[in-house]
């Protein structure tokens, strides 16, 4: 722990050469995980993450350093090495630190630290037993994992503020490998939350989660190769939101926008999407995977409407990148841990409900692809060129969902695809993922209702869609 007195000393050392902002980010976190492979516990681990990140800002310049040496000497040495980047007169002296208490929107009734390892193992085994009970010789390997993470963060800054935040989150994941004479396929499901064990009793029951992973893998074993070319694509709800995450979410982060490196720079108030699209980033949803009470520079989490009826309204902004935009941070500053300089990131990002039903969208599609399972994707925010891979997809013929296909990848340019979303349903759901970018790997929810893209390029090996 860093005392208030030491924090003031370190902040003042950081500020001695003219920085206009200084911040200490102290972290003491731990994570426990257990893995069960083919029915037997194969690994159990405990990891401690502990250290401090020091950040100095002066106008549009940022200086960052971290250390796991939390002694006074270690922190002062780091402060002295970083403040050499500036050579001006002191602008600020910190004399006191006032503790700011925020709302706890993600209460954990019983900490995972107090749950015996055996109970976590039993929980994972509910799912692995379910896979075993399927007794399908094509299932060659199945692994269940339970991970819980307790993150303790304290932030001191030169505005005289002091924040603390305790976060706990957990994830249950199953991966299944199946094989037959035609080849090998995989299935994966990994729901997570910032909630206690009740989440895995009610909303993400191990049996259902594990069975879904196994069934998807088995289904893909029988699936034909996905056709290729341009076609209408209906994207299923929940994890389908990875489309918006890649195509539009990253380009709306201040790290790209503030430097003119996003196609959305300067387009506030302009129509950038089809009028059926309203998109939101909301870090205030209680107990959701991507929610935060305060961000990693102490700003409270907020709900931001990014696009309203197709019109660009807002961005994800952190204080530093906000300087180039003449804006203050809106609670979007995040980092994996103290080893990463924080920047603007997403939280729970989703396309809001529309007026159609999923059934109407399928019925209105004569020939196309219905993508319901996704493996993730990536984007170049400057060009807006994105991709995402489908782990489960079907062909739609004459308004009906028909045969499964595998190996589909969807590609496009965010700006163009947003305008091609022509139907949005009313079945909004979320999917939990890890998003990797400059400030490391963080928890983010993707989300959307079922929607249709009138035309997008699909990559697959199955030739022309007929």
């Amino acid at each position, binding site marked *: 722990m860093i005392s208030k007195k030491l924090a003031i000393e370190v902040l003042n050392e950081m500020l001695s050469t003219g920085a206009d902002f200084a911040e200490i980010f102290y972290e003491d976190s731990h994570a426990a995980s257990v893995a069960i492979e083919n029915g037997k516990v194969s690994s159990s*681990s405990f990891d401690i993450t502990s250290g401090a990140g020091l950040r100095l800002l002066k106008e549009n310049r940022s200086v960052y350093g971290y250390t796991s040496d939390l002694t006074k000497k270690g922190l002062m040495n780091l402060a002295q090495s970083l403040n050499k980047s500036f050579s001006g007169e002191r602008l600020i002296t910190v004399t006191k630190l006032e503790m700011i208490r925020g709302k706890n929107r993600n209460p954990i009734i019983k900490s995972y630290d107090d749950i015996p390892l055996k109970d976590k193992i039993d929980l994972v085994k509910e799912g692995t037993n379910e896979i075993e009970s399927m007794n399908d010789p094509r299932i060659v390997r199945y692994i269940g994992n339970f991970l819980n993470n307790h993150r303790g963060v304290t932030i001191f800054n030169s505005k005289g503020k002091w924040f603390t935040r305790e976060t706990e989150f957990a994830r249950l994941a199953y991966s299944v490998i199946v094989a037959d004479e035609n080849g090998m396929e995989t299935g994966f499901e990994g729901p997570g939350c910032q909630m206690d064990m009740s989440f895995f009793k009610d909303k993400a029951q191990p049996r259902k989660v594990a069975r879904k992973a196994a069934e998807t893998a088995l289904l893909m074993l029988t699936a034909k190769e996905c056709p290729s070319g341009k076609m209408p694509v209906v994207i299923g709800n929940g994890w389908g939101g990875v489309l918006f995450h890649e195509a539009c979410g990253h380009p709306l982060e201040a790290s790209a926008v503030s430097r003119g490196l996003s196609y959305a720079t300067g387009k506030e108030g302009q129509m950038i999407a089809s009028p059926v699209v309203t998109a939101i980033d909301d870090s205030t949803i209680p107990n959701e995977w991507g929610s935060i009470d305060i961000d990693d520079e102490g700003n409270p989490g907020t709900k931001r409407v990014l696009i309203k009826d197709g019109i660009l309204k807002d961005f994800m902004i952190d204080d530093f990148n906000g300087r180039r935009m003449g804006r203050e941070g809106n609670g979007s500053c995040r980092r994996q841990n103290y080893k990463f300089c924080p920047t603007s990131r997403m939280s729970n990002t989703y396309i809001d409900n529309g007026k159609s039903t999923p059934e109407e969208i399928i019925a209105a599609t004569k020939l196309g692809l219905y993508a319901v399972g996704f493996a993730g994707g990536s984007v170049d925010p400057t060009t807006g060129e994105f991709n995402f891979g489908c782990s489960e997809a079907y062909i739609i013929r004459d308004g009906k969902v028909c045969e499964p296909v595998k190996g589909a990848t969807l590609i496009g340019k965010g700006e163009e695809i947003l305008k091609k979303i022509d139907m949005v349903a009313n079945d909004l759901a979320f999917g939990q993922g890890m998003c990797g970018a400059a400030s490391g790997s963080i928890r983010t929810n993707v989300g959307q209702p079922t929607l249709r893209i009138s035309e997008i390029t699909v990559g697959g090996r199955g030739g022309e869609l007929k």
Partner: protein
Amino acid sequence: MKYDKFFELAKKAGIEDCELNINQSTSLEFSLFHGEIDNYSSNSSSTYLARGIYKGKLGAITSDVFTKDSPEQFVNAIVSNASVIENDDPVFIFKGSEKYHKINTFNRELSKIPVEDKLNKLFELEKKIKEGDPRIIEIETVGYEESSSTLTILKSNGLKLTQKNNDFAYYGGAVAKEGEQVKTGFDFFFSNDFSKFDVDKLAKSIVKETTSKLGGHQCESATYKAVLSQDVMRAFILAYIGSAVAEDIQKKSSLFVDKLNQKVASKKVTISDNPLSKTIFARGFDGEGVATRNMVIIKNGILQNYLYNLTTAAKEGIESNGHGTVGGGSRVGTTTWYLEMKAGKKTLEQLCEEVGTGVYITDVQGLHAGMNERSGNFSLQSTGFMIENGKITHGLDIITVSGNLVDLFNSISEVGSDSKEFANGIKCPSVIVKKIAVSGK
């Protein structure tokens, strides 16, 4: 000694053999935006991994700090984690190899070069990219990274293994615009010998990478004969050689099950793992402390060896070939250190001539989503060029390439002479493949 108490307490707790794996590292990074330093970072950190065998099972813990409470905390965690293990995998705290090769991966001169000199080269790089072509409208990123680390393994039998590494990298990414079309390009240089850095060469490469993509349009969706660049081969080799991990072979979940001494690629393909090569990726011992050796994995298309750690080797009653990695859990992983694909004699131009009509694929994106290493199927966002009459003609705007790794490696008909080394420990040339499915229009 600082760590003696851990070994004492471990012995008292009934931990048979144990070890501490200590990684101490420092790093320096800076980047520019519009001619000014916008990010500067100087860091130091440690990671401690404690592993031990308790009642025949392996337990482990990792921590960023080693305090006075750590010995007890580490021992308790090893005992509690080992106590829940149910599988019967043989586990080891390796006692040491007879002989270790001397490795030189630390260049003392690098830290003596003033930061100012390193910074000046970066300003020069930014300026040269900007001035390299009028179509360059922005520098997306330009930066310098330097790191130094010392890995020490201390074992309860008294063995101590140490390796020091350092390296630096310059990188840059630019944005080019022509009409309404915007394209980005990126390249890098890394080494631990500062005198080898050529700022002009890197700037030119970044400008070329960026501007050459302009003017592209989508091609027809079809199957093409193709040249795959070194960067594309890097991605495919890493994915395919992952199939040689012995654990996956033993668990019947790899493309290389029952393929030892059989054909897994065309006869043009020879791929080795060379941890004893004179590169910054050299390693004298693996994560478990086993001495490493150079080893052919695929020779003229025939699979020669699987990759073993102590656990997977013991299951087959053989010796580990030095590919073990250790992490936080009880499970020991498997890795390669420095993969090299044997180069051929033809230049890129000659490869294109040989293709005649086809595509030149220079980059693949979204591997974590579009590459299924188990099935070998891939469908990936790509960048490339059209090859017409044996010459590269125009860029290809947003396409995918799809196929299967087994088919792809078997259809390599020629290997280029243009080997390139990448930062994740692999060196490979461009190749020709007889067919790859492209999705465009």
